[in-house]
C-alpha cells in the first residue's frame, strides 16, 4: 500500500485556504438567524412574573379579555423594589399578547421623583414594543394571505407577543433590570433593553458615568483583550471584526460586584451555539 500512502499524502497536503473558516462561519451565522425563532421563550421567568402568571390564569378563565392592574408585588430588596406596575394579557382572534411592565419604587424619601421619569420611559418602551409588534403581526397576516395563504393555514400560526422583564441585580447600591420583547414569528425583532441604576447616588448609570470620558476606548480595549483570551482558551472564533464597538447604547448591567458587564446577544459576536456573551469590565 505504499503508493496509496503516497496518494493520501498528496491528498492531505491540499492546502486549506484561510477563507474556508470564514465562509463556513458566515453560513452558520446566516442559518442560525433564520432557524432560531423561539430562543427567547426558553428564558426563565422571574419569581414575580410567575406570580403574575398565576393571577393571569384565574383572570383568563373568568373573562375572555383580561386586563388588570397589579401592583405591589415586591421582588427583593429594602431600599428599592421592583413591582409589576401593569400586566396584561390579551387574546385576539389572531394574536396572544402578554405584557409585564415593571416599575421601580425607591423607599428612600429624598430620591423621590427621580424614578418617575425612568418609570415613564420603561412604560413607553414596553407599550411601544407591544403596539409595534401587533402592527407587525397584522402586516405579516396580510402578506401571508396576499401571497396565497388561506385563513385556515393562518389559523395554525401560533402568533405570540411577549414583553417581560428580569431583575439582573438588586443590592443596596445597584439595581439592574432588563426588559425584553419578543415575537414568536420573527426573532429579528427581539429586543432587550437594559437599565442600571445607582441607588445611593440616585442616578442612572451609563458607561460614561462609570469610566469617564474615555469610556469608549477603555471598554473596547478591555473587551478585545478578553475576546483574545477566550479565543485562546476555547478555540472558538469570535466575530469581533463585525463588532461596531462601544457607544452610549451598548448594553450592560451591573453585577453583584458592582462591575459593569457588557452583553452581546446570541449571534451578535459569536456563533449562536456559544450563546450570549458577557464581559465583566472591572472598575
Amino acid at each position, binding site marked *: *500500500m505504499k503508493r496509496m500512502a503516497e496518494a493520501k499524502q498528496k491528498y492531505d497536503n491540499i492546502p486549506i*485556504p484561510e477563507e474556508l473558516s470564514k*465562509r*463556513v462561519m458566515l453560513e452558520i451565522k446566516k442559518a442560525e438567524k433564520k432557524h432560531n425563532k423561539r430562543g427567547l421563550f426558553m428564558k426563565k421567568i422571574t419569581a414575580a412574573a410567575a406570580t403574575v402568571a398565576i393571577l393571569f390564569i384565574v383572570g383568563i378563565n373568568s373573562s375572555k379579555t383580561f386586563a388588570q392592574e397589579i401592583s405591589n408585588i415586591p421582588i427583593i430588596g429594602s431600599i428599592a423594589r421592583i413591582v409589576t406596575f401593569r400586566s396584561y394579557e390579551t387574546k385576539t382572534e389572531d394574536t396572544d399578547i402578554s405584557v409585564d411592565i415593571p416599575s421601580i419604587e425607591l423607599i428612600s424619601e429624598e430620591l423621590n421623583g427621580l424614578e418617575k421619569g425612568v418609570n415613564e420611559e420603561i412604560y413607553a418602551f414596553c407599550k411601544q414594543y407591544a403596539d409595534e409588534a401587533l402592527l407587525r403581526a397584522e402586516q405579516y397576516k396580510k402578506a401571508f394571505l396576499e401571497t396565497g395563504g388561506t385563513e385556515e393555514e393562518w389559523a395554525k400560526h401560533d402568533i405570540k407577543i411577549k414583553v417581560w422583564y428580569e431583575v439582573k441585580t438588586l443590592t443596596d447600591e445597584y439595581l439592574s433590570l432588563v426588559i425584553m420583547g419578543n415575537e414568536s414569528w420573527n426573532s429579528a425583532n427581539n429586543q432587550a433593553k437594559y437599565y442600571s441604576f445607582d441607588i445611593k447616588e440616585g442616578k442612572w448609570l451609563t458607561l460614561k458615568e462609570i469610566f469617564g470620558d474615555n469610556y469608549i476606548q477603555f471598554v473596547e480595549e478591555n473587551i478585545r483583550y478578553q475576546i483574545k483570551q477566550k479565543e485562546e482558551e476555547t478555540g472558538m472564533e469570535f466575530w469581533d471584526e463585525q463588532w461596531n464597538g462601544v457607544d452610549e447604547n451598548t448594553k450592560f448591567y451591573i453585577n453583584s460586584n458592582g462591575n459593569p458587564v457588557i452583553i452581546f446577544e446570541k449571534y451578535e459576536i459569536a456563533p449562536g451555539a456559544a450563546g450570549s456573551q458577557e464581559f465583566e469590565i472591572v472598575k
Partner: protein
Amino acid sequence: MKQDLYNKLVTYIIENQDKFYRLAFSYVKNQDDALDVVQNAVCKALTHYKDLKNEEAIKTWFYKIVLNESLALLKAKKRLVLTDESYYHEIPYEEKQFEIYDDLYTQIEQMEEDAQNIIKLRFFEELELNEIAQILRMNLNTVKTKLYRELRALKVAIEKEAGV
C-alpha cells in the same frame, strides 16, 4: 432535543471543515469552487437539519451532502464547457494528464465516478465500508466488490487490512 442535535451538527462542521474542503477540492480541483462547495453544503445541511435522524448519522449525512455538491458542481461545469467553444481546445490538455500513470493520485482522479468516490472515502478520508455504503446509498457488498475491482485495476497490492 432538535436544538441539541443542531448544535452538534454545527460543532461537527466547524471541527471537520478541512476534511470537507479537501474532499471537495479533490473533485473540483480549484480553490474557488471547493470553497463554494463547502459553503453550499453547510447551507444545505443547516437548512435541512430536520432530516437528520440522530447524532450518529451526522457524519455520513454531511459527507453525502459534500459529495453531492461536489459532483453537482462538476456536472454543471461540464455542461457549461460543452456549450463553450473553448471545450475543443481543452481536449489535448486532458489527455496529457492520462499519461502520468506513475502517480496514483492522478490515476484515481481519472477513474469513473463511483470508483473515485469509494477510493477517496476509504483511503483518503479513512471511512468504514459501512459508512461509505450509507453515503453512496449502496449495498455493503456492492461497495466491497467495486473496491476490490478498482484496486486491482489500479494495480495496488491489497494487503490484509482490517475492514477491507
